[in-house]
């Protein structure tokens, strides 16, 4: 795997990082094995992601992926967000993370999808175990 230049600059200067007050939904993901710890916040207007932020800590891949993913989904309809799969994520972050780093690359996408799910279903945490 290559640490492509864009990935490194997104890690060093991540976009959309920070907490969001009055988010419509948020979700916290933690990977105890490596310590990646991310929360995604979303604000939704007219079925679109009006604003999205992430906060937390992790390795270069998890932080850069969160930065690039949040850039990508801003302004998109939530149906588009729900449809993002691993292949598309690889295109967004510009690398194939390989099996060992898969969890680092996908942690922000998982949190984002769960945040969207919670928004749509208005269910408390824990109702989303099967996602």
């Amino acid at each position: 795997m290559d640490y492509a230049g864009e990935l490194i600059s997104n890690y060093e200067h991540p976009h959309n990082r920070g907490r969001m007050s009055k988010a419509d939904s948020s979700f916290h993901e933690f990977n105890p094995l490596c310590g990646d710890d991310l929360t995604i916040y979303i604000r939704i207007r007219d079925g679109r992601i009006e604003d999205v932020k992430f906060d937390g800590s992790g390795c270069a891949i998890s932080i850069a992926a969160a930065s690039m993913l949040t850039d990508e989904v801003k302004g998109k309809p939530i149906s588009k967000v729900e449809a993002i799969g691993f292949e598309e994520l690889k295109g967004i972050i510009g690398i194939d993370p390989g099996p060992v780093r898969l969890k680092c690359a996908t942690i922000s996408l998982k949190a984002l999808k769960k945040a969207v799910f919670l928004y749509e279903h208005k269910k408390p945490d824990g109702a989303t175990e099967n996602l």
Partner: protein
Amino acid sequence: MRFDVERIRADFPILQRKMNGKPLAYLDSAATSQKPLAVIEAISDYYSTYNANIHRGIYELSEKATEKYAESKEKVAKLINAGGVENIIYTRNATEALNLAALTYASHKVRKGDRILITEMEHHSNLVPWQLLAKKQKAVLEYIRVDKRTGLLDGTSLNESLEREPAIVSLTQASNVLGTINDVKSITRMAHGHGATVIVDGAQSAPRMRVDVKDIGCDFLAFSGHKMLGPTGIGVMYAKRDILEETEPLLGGGDMILKVTLKAHMWNELPWKFEAGTPNIEGGIVLGTAIDYLNGIGLGAIDSYESELTRYALARLSELKNVETFGPGLKDAKNRAGLVAFSINGIHAHDIAQVFNDNGIAIRAGHHCAMPLVREVLGKDSLARMSFYVYNTKDEIDRAVDAIEKVKKIFRVE
């Protein structure tokens, strides 16, 4: 006598291979060691020529398997200077040995309100079993503090904790993160003076130095075969004879009984009382082969060679800007196991290990199964760790230093 690392390397087939197109530099032996050809062939030899269940077959194959299995226990007993095979219980690994001690002897000894004393530098395998036991028995789990600056146990904390008369003291002989070698002999003597039973985790020490249970005086010792050139799935719990005699076994089944009636049973003799069911026969036998190989080099020679590599690694890493190492420093390197945990200016250890991997170098990254030590004591998210064994070279450490420079370049660290 010169330590002939090239001759040793020739015995390890895996070292011929490449990783990501580069010669493999395996710097992760504290996680598991590589295996010499003698060990690999001994496994195949067992299955090809005398595979049979032990202790029951009245035929040549079974007799040979039984004999070889018992012979390996004699080798283990000799290796750690135990009284005899009756002190040697085979388990899956050091983790199972520590759990076995906690679930049998310790769970009878520890009563409500009693104290169990461990250290902040324990691997999860010597930490979680005690959290579980403390919860079950409503006992109190206490920790001997680690001095973050020196990587050593805090003497005041040790003394104060022992004053509170713990029922059990369980600690590692060598830390898998800091490399610190604890003076388990003195601590055992002090702990016995306060009435405690002493359990030593030898997972990192048994592969690389003389561990003499009579000299240490400990009541239990646990270690794993796979970290000392043996196969996975075989570990050892040593305990003193009187303790084993009075302790009830955890598992019941075949082989651990002498006699069973519809109403009762009579336990088998030691050590078989603790080994219910068909054991890991090939693992047991081949652990003996691994011990033969280690004795061929000599544990004293292994100890000094690992110290030499560790001193070299600490010296080379100290030349690098923005690289921090953990555990006892260069001047205390004599009493340090063959591993160096490090971090580079806050770069996540998984990113470091990834760049190492791209350069053919295998290292460990993360919490190293010692989350309380890494996060709560050292205050880090993750650490990278290189660890050494009989087949490693200074050239591989140089390659690791080059890889660190590459990490720094990629992440634009000065």
